[in-house]
Protein backbone atom coordinates (compact mmCIF):
# COMPACT_ATOMS: atom_id res chain seq x y z
CA UNK A 1 0.00 0.00 0.00
CA UNK A 2 1.30 3.41 -0.79
CA UNK A 3 0.67 6.75 0.84
CA UNK A 4 -1.79 7.67 -1.86
CA UNK A 5 -4.30 5.41 -0.16
CA UNK A 6 -4.41 7.85 2.74
CA UNK A 7 -7.80 9.51 2.97
CA UNK A 8 -8.53 8.46 -0.59
CA UNK A 9 -10.26 5.15 -0.09
CA UNK A 10 -13.68 6.81 -0.06
CA UNK A 11 -13.07 7.99 -3.61
CA UNK A 12 -10.98 5.09 -4.87
CA UNK A 13 -12.84 2.47 -6.88
CA UNK A 14 -12.14 -1.04 -5.64
CA UNK A 15 -11.99 -3.59 -8.45
CA UNK A 16 -12.49 -7.24 -7.53
CA UNK A 17 -12.04 -9.83 -10.27
CA UNK A 18 -12.83 -13.54 -10.06
CA UNK A 19 -9.55 -14.22 -11.94
CA UNK A 20 -10.81 -17.73 -12.63
CA UNK A 21 -9.43 -20.52 -14.79
CA UNK A 22 -11.10 -19.68 -18.09
CA UNK A 23 -10.85 -17.00 -20.72
CA UNK A 24 -13.54 -14.92 -19.03
CA UNK A 25 -11.92 -15.35 -15.60
CA UNK A 26 -8.62 -14.16 -16.97
CA UNK A 27 -10.34 -11.37 -18.90
CA UNK A 28 -11.71 -10.11 -15.58
CA UNK A 29 -8.20 -10.21 -14.17
CA UNK A 30 -6.53 -8.51 -17.14
CA UNK A 31 -9.13 -5.75 -17.24
CA UNK A 32 -8.67 -5.14 -13.51
CA UNK A 33 -4.89 -4.99 -13.93
CA UNK A 34 -5.05 -2.53 -16.82
CA UNK A 35 -7.67 -0.30 -15.20
CA UNK A 36 -5.44 -0.14 -12.12
CA UNK A 37 -2.40 0.71 -14.23
CA UNK A 38 -4.41 3.43 -15.96
CA UNK A 39 -5.45 4.92 -12.62
CA UNK A 40 -9.15 4.26 -13.05
CA UNK A 41 -9.41 2.20 -9.88
CA UNK A 42 -7.45 -0.17 -7.76
CA UNK A 43 -7.51 -3.93 -8.06
CA UNK A 44 -7.94 -5.61 -4.69
CA UNK A 45 -7.25 -9.16 -3.60
CA UNK A 46 -10.44 -11.23 -3.79
CA UNK A 47 -8.51 -14.24 -2.47
CA UNK A 48 -7.89 -12.35 0.77
CA UNK A 49 -11.62 -11.76 1.12
CA UNK A 50 -12.31 -15.41 0.36
CA UNK A 51 -9.70 -16.41 2.92
CA UNK A 52 -11.64 -14.40 5.48
CA UNK A 53 -8.60 -12.30 6.44
CA UNK A 54 -10.02 -9.44 8.45
CA UNK A 55 -8.17 -6.64 6.66
CA UNK A 56 -9.49 -7.75 3.28
CA UNK A 57 -12.99 -8.55 4.49
CA UNK A 58 -13.39 -5.26 6.33
CA UNK A 59 -12.01 -3.35 3.35
CA UNK A 60 -14.63 -4.96 1.12
CA UNK A 61 -17.34 -4.02 3.61
CA UNK A 62 -16.20 -0.43 4.11
CA UNK A 63 -15.26 0.66 0.59
CA UNK A 64 -18.20 2.61 -0.89
CA UNK A 65 -17.18 2.44 -4.57
CA UNK A 66 -16.67 -1.01 -5.95
CA UNK A 67 -16.98 -3.07 -9.13
CA UNK A 68 -17.09 -6.86 -8.81
CA UNK A 69 -16.37 -8.86 -11.98
CA UNK A 70 -17.33 -12.48 -12.44
CA UNK A 71 -16.34 -14.27 -15.61
CA UNK A 72 -19.40 -16.48 -15.75
CA UNK A 73 -22.70 -17.28 -14.10
CA UNK A 74 -21.08 -19.63 -11.59
CA UNK A 75 -20.56 -16.38 -9.67
CA UNK A 76 -17.55 -17.18 -7.49
CA UNK A 77 -16.79 -13.53 -6.76
CA UNK A 78 -20.42 -12.87 -5.88
CA UNK A 79 -20.41 -15.90 -3.55
CA UNK A 80 -17.25 -14.70 -1.83
CA UNK A 81 -18.77 -11.28 -1.24
CA UNK A 82 -21.94 -12.85 0.14
CA UNK A 83 -19.94 -15.08 2.48
CA UNK A 84 -18.01 -12.02 3.66
CA UNK A 85 -21.26 -10.15 4.26
CA UNK A 86 -19.95 -7.40 2.00
CA UNK A 87 -22.07 -5.36 -0.42
CA UNK A 88 -21.74 -6.38 -4.04
CA UNK A 89 -21.49 -2.82 -5.37
CA UNK A 90 -21.60 -2.77 -9.15
CA UNK A 91 -21.59 -6.27 -10.53
CA UNK A 92 -20.67 -7.62 -13.95
CA UNK A 93 -20.82 -11.12 -15.44
CA UNK A 94 -18.73 -11.25 -18.58
CA UNK A 95 -20.72 -14.01 -20.28
CA UNK A 96 -23.75 -11.71 -19.90
CA UNK A 97 -21.75 -9.13 -21.85
CA UNK A 98 -21.75 -11.53 -24.81
CA UNK A 99 -18.32 -13.05 -24.32
CA UNK A 100 -18.35 -16.82 -24.71
CA UNK A 101 -16.61 -18.86 -22.02
CA UNK A 102 -13.84 -21.21 -23.11
CA UNK A 103 -10.41 -22.40 -22.04
CA UNK A 104 -8.40 -20.32 -24.49
CA UNK A 105 -6.04 -18.15 -22.45
CA UNK A 106 -4.87 -16.21 -25.49
CA UNK A 107 -6.99 -13.22 -24.61
CA UNK A 108 -8.26 -11.01 -27.40
CA UNK A 109 -7.51 -7.30 -27.21
CA UNK A 110 -11.07 -6.48 -28.26
CA UNK A 111 -12.48 -8.57 -25.40
CA UNK A 112 -10.21 -6.93 -22.82
CA UNK A 113 -11.25 -3.49 -24.03
CA UNK A 114 -14.92 -4.50 -23.98
CA UNK A 115 -14.62 -5.59 -20.35
CA UNK A 116 -12.80 -2.39 -19.40
CA UNK A 117 -15.53 -0.31 -21.01
CA UNK A 118 -18.21 -2.28 -19.14
CA UNK A 119 -16.41 -1.69 -15.83
CA UNK A 120 -16.11 2.04 -16.56
CA UNK A 121 -19.80 2.27 -17.40
CA UNK A 122 -20.77 0.41 -14.24
CA UNK A 123 -18.63 2.62 -12.04
CA UNK A 124 -19.95 5.78 -13.67
CA UNK A 125 -23.38 4.98 -12.26
CA UNK A 126 -21.96 6.28 -8.97
CA UNK A 127 -21.46 9.68 -10.48
CA UNK A 128 -24.95 9.83 -12.01
CA UNK A 129 -26.95 8.50 -9.05
CA UNK A 130 -28.98 11.14 -7.21
CA UNK A 131 -27.55 12.12 -3.85
CA UNK A 132 -28.79 9.99 -1.00
CA UNK A 133 -29.62 6.97 -3.15
CA UNK A 134 -27.60 3.77 -3.33
CA UNK A 135 -24.68 4.34 -5.65
CA UNK A 136 -24.58 8.06 -5.03
CA UNK A 137 -21.25 9.79 -4.76
CA UNK A 138 -20.27 9.94 -1.11
CA UNK A 139 -20.16 13.45 0.23
CA UNK A 140 -16.64 14.04 1.50
CA UNK A 141 -14.67 17.07 2.41
CA UNK A 142 -11.36 17.30 0.59
CA UNK A 143 -8.39 15.90 2.45
CA UNK A 144 -5.68 18.32 3.34
CA UNK A 145 -2.91 15.89 4.22
CA UNK A 146 0.34 15.96 2.32
CA UNK A 147 0.04 12.31 1.37
CA UNK A 148 -3.07 12.51 -0.80
Amino acid at each position, binding site marked *: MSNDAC*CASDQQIMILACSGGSNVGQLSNQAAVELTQEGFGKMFCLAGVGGQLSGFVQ*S*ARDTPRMVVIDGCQVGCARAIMKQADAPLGHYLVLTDEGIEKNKDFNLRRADIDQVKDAVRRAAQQDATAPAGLPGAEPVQSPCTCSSC
Partner: protein
Amino acid sequence: MEIKVLGPGCPKCQQTEKVVKEAIAEAGVSADIEKVTDTMKIAGYGVFGTPAVVVDGEVKSVGKIPKKEDVKSWISS
Protein backbone atom coordinates in the same frame (compact mmCIF):
# COMPACT_ATOMS: atom_id res chain seq x y z
CA MET B 1 -6.23 -5.30 24.80
CA GLU B 2 -4.15 -4.00 21.93
CA ILE B 3 -5.47 -1.40 19.51
CA LYS B 4 -3.63 -0.20 16.44
CA VAL B 5 -4.53 2.82 14.36
CA LEU B 6 -3.16 2.46 10.85
CA GLY B 7 -2.36 5.56 8.83
CA PRO B 8 0.54 7.68 7.68
CA GLY B 9 -0.55 10.72 9.66
CA CYS B 10 -3.22 12.55 7.72
CA PRO B 11 -5.99 14.50 9.52
CA LYS B 12 -8.45 11.59 9.25
CA CYS B 13 -5.89 9.27 10.83
CA GLN B 14 -5.30 11.73 13.66
CA GLN B 15 -9.04 12.10 14.19
CA THR B 16 -9.41 8.32 14.29
CA GLU B 17 -6.75 8.07 16.98
CA LYS B 18 -8.57 10.75 18.97
CA VAL B 19 -11.92 8.91 18.69
CA VAL B 20 -10.31 5.64 19.78
CA LYS B 21 -8.67 7.27 22.81
CA GLU B 22 -11.92 8.92 23.84
CA ALA B 23 -13.83 5.66 23.48
CA ILE B 24 -11.32 3.83 25.64
CA ALA B 25 -11.44 6.53 28.28
CA GLU B 26 -15.24 6.59 28.36
CA ALA B 27 -15.51 2.80 28.41
CA GLY B 28 -13.01 2.62 31.23
CA VAL B 29 -11.10 -0.26 29.73
CA SER B 30 -7.38 -0.83 29.72
CA ALA B 31 -5.83 -0.86 26.27
CA ASP B 32 -2.53 -0.19 24.58
CA ILE B 33 -2.82 2.07 21.55
CA GLU B 34 -0.20 2.01 18.84
CA LYS B 35 -0.12 4.34 15.86
CA VAL B 36 1.24 2.46 12.83
CA THR B 37 2.59 4.86 10.20
CA ASP B 38 4.99 2.63 8.31
CA THR B 39 3.37 1.92 4.94
CA MET B 40 4.90 -1.54 4.66
CA LYS B 41 3.55 -2.51 8.06
CA ILE B 42 0.15 -1.10 7.11
CA ALA B 43 0.21 -3.13 3.90
CA GLY B 44 0.69 -6.25 6.00
CA TYR B 45 -2.83 -5.86 7.32
CA GLY B 46 -4.30 -6.08 3.83
CA VAL B 47 -6.34 -2.91 4.10
CA PHE B 48 -7.56 -1.06 1.00
CA GLY B 49 -7.03 2.35 2.56
CA THR B 50 -6.49 4.27 5.76
CA PRO B 51 -7.31 5.16 8.45
CA ALA B 52 -7.91 1.66 9.74
CA VAL B 53 -8.41 0.32 13.24
CA VAL B 54 -7.20 -3.07 14.45
CA VAL B 55 -8.38 -4.54 17.76
CA ASP B 56 -6.44 -7.53 19.06
CA GLY B 57 -5.28 -8.38 15.56
CA GLU B 58 -8.64 -8.06 13.85
CA VAL B 59 -9.29 -5.21 11.43
CA LYS B 60 -12.51 -3.47 12.46
CA SER B 61 -12.68 -0.39 10.24
CA VAL B 62 -11.11 0.70 6.95
CA GLY B 63 -10.95 4.01 5.13
CA LYS B 64 -13.09 6.07 7.47
CA ILE B 65 -13.21 7.66 10.88
CA PRO B 66 -15.13 5.19 13.06
CA LYS B 67 -17.99 6.28 15.29
CA LYS B 68 -17.12 6.36 18.95
CA GLU B 69 -20.01 4.02 19.76
CA ASP B 70 -18.67 1.49 17.28
CA VAL B 71 -15.24 1.61 18.90
CA LYS B 72 -16.86 1.06 22.29
CA SER B 73 -18.66 -2.01 20.97
CA TRP B 74 -15.38 -3.43 19.65
CA ILE B 75 -13.55 -3.01 22.94
CA SER B 76 -16.38 -4.23 25.14
CA SER B 77 -17.11 -7.45 23.26
